[in-house]
């Protein structure tokens, strides 16, 4: 029978175990590198599913040693790390583990065999194209199903939007905008990095009708000196 005191200590054990497992998983995923988080290859998807399952069991069942969760998680992360290094070293191994991209549309023609091989219906292909902003199949030169499941589309040259260079226009490189004020807080480090100072900032705010940085939601400056200003509501 679980007494009130027993239930209390059980809860704290679950809490501590949860925190420990969470820290182990976060540390492991961070060690795996950034790529793991955003784009899941088949092997990475399997890894994520297995880790989630392995962590949940000792988290909930205090009768199972924590090590029974931690050891397989570390073993999985190590194995995934070894596979990831081997995929970098050997293209053949990479093809074996991650698969190869498939041309679903080649030179404007839908490749039915590839659709069947990847178990993709024509409707799903059209849907994916629409998600990419392509509504007319005849404008597609190539559609490639990448190994992470995403569809890459290359339009016919005639249907590609003209670039500034093609249009003969002068385009100025604005670079990456730097945030100077975020949610009313001045980022002084960014201000210094841009070679700007508080006086300049106050002048810019006054020009836009803001009495103080507290009234600004977002202020950014790009390398060409262009400003983006958004005032706080109310």
């Amino acid at each position: 029978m679980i007494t009130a005191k027993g239930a209390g200590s059980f809860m704290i054990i679950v809490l501590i175990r949860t925190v420990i497992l969470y820290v182990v998983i976060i540390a492991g995923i961070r060690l795996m590198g950034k790529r793991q988080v955003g784009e899941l290859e088949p092997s990475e998807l399997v890894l994520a599913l297995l880790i989630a399952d392995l962590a949940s069991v000792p988290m909930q069942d205090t009768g199972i040693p924590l090590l029974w969760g931690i050891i397989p998680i570390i073993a999985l992360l190590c194995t995934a790390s070894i596979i990831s290094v081997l995929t970098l070293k050997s293209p053949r191994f990479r093809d074996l583990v991650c698969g190869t991209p498939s041309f679903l549309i080649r030179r404007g023609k839908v490749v039915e065999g590839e659709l069947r091989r990847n178990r993709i219906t024509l409707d799903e292909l059209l849907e994916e194209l629409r998600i990419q902003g392509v509504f007319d199949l005849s404008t597609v030169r190539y559609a490639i199903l990448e190994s992470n499941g995403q569809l890459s589309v290359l339009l016919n040259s005639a249907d590609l939007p003209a670039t500034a260079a093609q249009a003969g226009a002068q385009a100025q490189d604005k670079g990456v905008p730097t945030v100077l004020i975020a949610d009313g807080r001045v980022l002084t480090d960014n201000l210094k990095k841009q070679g700007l100072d508080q006086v300049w900032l106050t002048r810019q705010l006054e020009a836009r009708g803001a009495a103080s940085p507290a009234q600004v939601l977002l202020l950014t400056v790009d390398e060409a000196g262009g400003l983006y200003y958004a005032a706080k509501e109310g």
Partner: protein
Amino acid sequence: MKRLVISLGLLLLIAGATLGNTAFLKTRTQALEELLTTAQAAVGRQDWREAEDLTKQALDQWRELEFYLHVTLRHDDIDQILASIQEVRQYLTCPEDTAEYAAANARLLTQLELLCEAECLTLHNIL
């Protein structure tokens, strides 16, 4: 390359630690089994005092290992063995129940054997 070496090293370390754990558990459970078997032989000679001492030694040895065992084994299994040792000790206090003692001791020996067997690196455990 560094990542590959670290990962391989870590995997080997875990494998080594788990094999070490199996060997350690085997040694300790065998020591307990010996004590309990000797205690059973003592009961056969009607030497209840020696049997009680040996079983008490087994209990003390098990208790010494408790933290390690809780970290490495399923808690239910450890508690079950502790309860079984206490049960065997209880039977030793009533000399007329020799058969009950023998049955409880045999059950305890089997539990220890199974506990050790479950940790061994065998094909039947892997499958």
